[in-house]
């Protein structure tokens, strides 16, 4: 029997039982739709995280103080910071692969403007911060090197802080705010960066000169961390090596002593975050895949019932000359048609669901062609796999017994 006739025969049989064919497909439809929606949502989350991390700035290298060590006892990371402003200045002078460096000191402080107050993080940095983090202002400008040297009481407000102190959408240039009861002049408002991937508000921040925050707010000689940027994206790993080697020398570490700092790059942070979201995506997709397999078992179930119910039909077909292979292909084509049609409807439904979720939850989604191809191929394989056994059973029927079957 040629393939055209097989298709014709199969589609007629499926058409005779439209409701049952549809219900059989439903399992596959839901499975495929779930796989596509889950992958789209997961991929969307992953992309959002990547974007946030890219928002850190390009070629960024971050130096964290690492756990200090007294003999074999290791303390919590960051418990004792040995990074200083002089480390930053020296790195800038000594490491050719490094373009900008800024020490960072952070305090949480209450900020008052008129009758309003707001608690936020105040970050002390060099003006180079703008270049390193790629974070421009939307109004005014960064403080200057002179402000830094003289520990001037000037600051830039994040959009959230400005909104909360001066009203939504305000640009309070030249206004004065009280930070821990010290008056700071607002010289700029930072461009909005929105939420971070972890749900943190990037704009809930105040930036002031490093020397000012260190001396007047934090009262420490150390920096919490250092931000640096490499001269190019290719120089990032060179910059990491240079910084590591230089800091070991500067911190007088013996060869057997471990680093008292950690140098990380944006790429590393990105890949960590990526791994996390990938795990989530895989988890969601595997739950969805299970429903796809359950759908496949549904197909097998219905096909088995169908073989029993159509035993006499199979007997008639064999009596008029159908070979075992003809019956096998017919039932296999029926099972595959169900799963493929289910796959197509499932893809459409999955895409629509993803779009719906994205509109409802403001969640970014990315529907990749690969995920569609994957779900679809999976559906086809399930059709063959779960269709094989019932088809085999039909093909092996004895024509005489099949004809007598009531």
């Amino acid at each position, binding site marked *: *029997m*040629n393939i055209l*006739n097989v298709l*014709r*025969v199969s589609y*007629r049989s499926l058409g*005779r039982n439209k409701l049952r064919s549809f219900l059989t497909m439903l399992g596959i439809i839901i499975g495929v739709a779930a796989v596509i929606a889950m992958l789209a949502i997961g991929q969307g989350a992953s992309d959002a995280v990547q974007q946030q991390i890219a928002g850190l700035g390009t070629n960024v290298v971050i130096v964290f103080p690492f756990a200090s060590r007294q003999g074999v006892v290791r303390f919590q990371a960051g418990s004792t910071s040995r990074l200083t402003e002089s480390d930053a200045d020296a790195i800038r002078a000594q490491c050719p692969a490094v373009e900008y460096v800024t020490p960072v000191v952070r305090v949480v402080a209450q900020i008052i403007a008129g009758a309003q107050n707001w608690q936020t993080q105040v970050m002390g940095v060099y003006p180079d911060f703008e270049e390193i983090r790629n974070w421009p202002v939307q109004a005014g400008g960064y403080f200057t090197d002179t402000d830094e040297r003289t520990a001037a009481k000037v600051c830039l407000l994040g959009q959230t802080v400005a909104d909360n102190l001066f009203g939504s959408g305000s640009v309070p240039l030249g206004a004065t705010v009280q930070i821990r009861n010290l008056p700071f002049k607002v010289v700029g408002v930072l461009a909005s960066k929105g939420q971070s991937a972890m749900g943190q508000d990037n704009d809930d921040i105040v930036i002031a000169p490093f020397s000012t925050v260190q001396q007047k707010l934090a009262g420490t000689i150390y920096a919490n961390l250092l931000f640096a940027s490499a001269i190019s994206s290719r120089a990032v790993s060179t910059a990491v090596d240079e910084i590591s080697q230089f800091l070991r020398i500067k911190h007088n570490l013996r060869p057997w002593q471990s680093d008292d700092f950690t140098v990380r790059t944006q790429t590393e942070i990105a890949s960590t975050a990526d791994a996390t979201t990938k795990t989530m995506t895989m988890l969601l997709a595997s739950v969805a895949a299970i429903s796809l397999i359950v759908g496949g078992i549904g197909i097998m179930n219905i096909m088995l019932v169908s073989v029993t119910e159509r035993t*006499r*039909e199979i*007997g*008639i*077909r*064999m*009596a*008029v*000359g*159908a*070979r*075992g*292979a*003809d019956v096998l292909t017919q039932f296999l084509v029926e099972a595959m048609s169900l799963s493929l049609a289910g796959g197509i409807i499932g893809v459409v439904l999955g895409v629509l669901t993803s779009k719906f979720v994205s509109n409802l939850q403001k969640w970014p989604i990315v529907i990749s062609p690969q995920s569609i191809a994957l779900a679809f191929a999976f559906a086809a394989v399930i059709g063959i796999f779960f269709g094989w056994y019932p088809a085999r059973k039909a093909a092996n029927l004895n*024509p*005489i017994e099949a*004809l007598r079957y009531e």
Partner: protein
Amino acid sequence: MADAIISVRHLVKTYKMGDVEVHALRGINIEIVRGEFLAIMGASGSGKSTFMNIIGCLDTPSSGEYFLDDVQVSRLNRDELARLRNRKLGFVFQAFNLLPRTTALENVELPLLYSDSHSTAQRRAKAMEALAAVGLADRAGHYSNQLSGGQQQRVAIARSLVNDPVVILADEPTGNLDTRTSVEVIEIFQRLNEKGITVVLVTHEPDIAGFSERNIVFRDGKVSKVIEVENRKLASEELPKLPLIVDEIES
């Protein structure tokens, strides 16, 4: 006999039901001549159905030889048997055995679907021709469940002859039909037989057997009697004598 279309020698069929051996056929020797109209008779359990299954290439004998149109059938495999059924044989069953929810035309086309040698248009034309031969050309588009018993059996006959078989095997074709419809069906068989198709009919009604040329009676897995029919009845002559059922109710 040179002109035997079906020739069986020492045909034996033994079934194993658990430990018990059932001897369905105990050495059958029959030659069926090309163009013959043969009726096989016998009580149930006499082995006639087993014999029909074997000559219908649905079953294989335990031993013995079977030649169909000079082809040694007893040694063919499943697929070769299917091919033989498709090319050389036509089946008519007691229970009609049409595909449900399928039109008469599609039912008749069925054997052609498995022979791969016809285009869609040729298939349609041949099926229409066969339907016309049984007088049902105007019912081609009807579904099988919309047809009466007699009409269903005529569709089944059309299906059996659509592939131009050398033999039509009919297993109790009138078993589910009333007398008049039975004779109508037999009339079709006689007409086909006159065109040269060999007809082998299984029946337990002597009336029906009277329409054939030769009767073979089975008993306990053996041929007990071979009867040449004298005064063979012709269905076309019997038919006018039979009252229509409508007339019976009216009178």
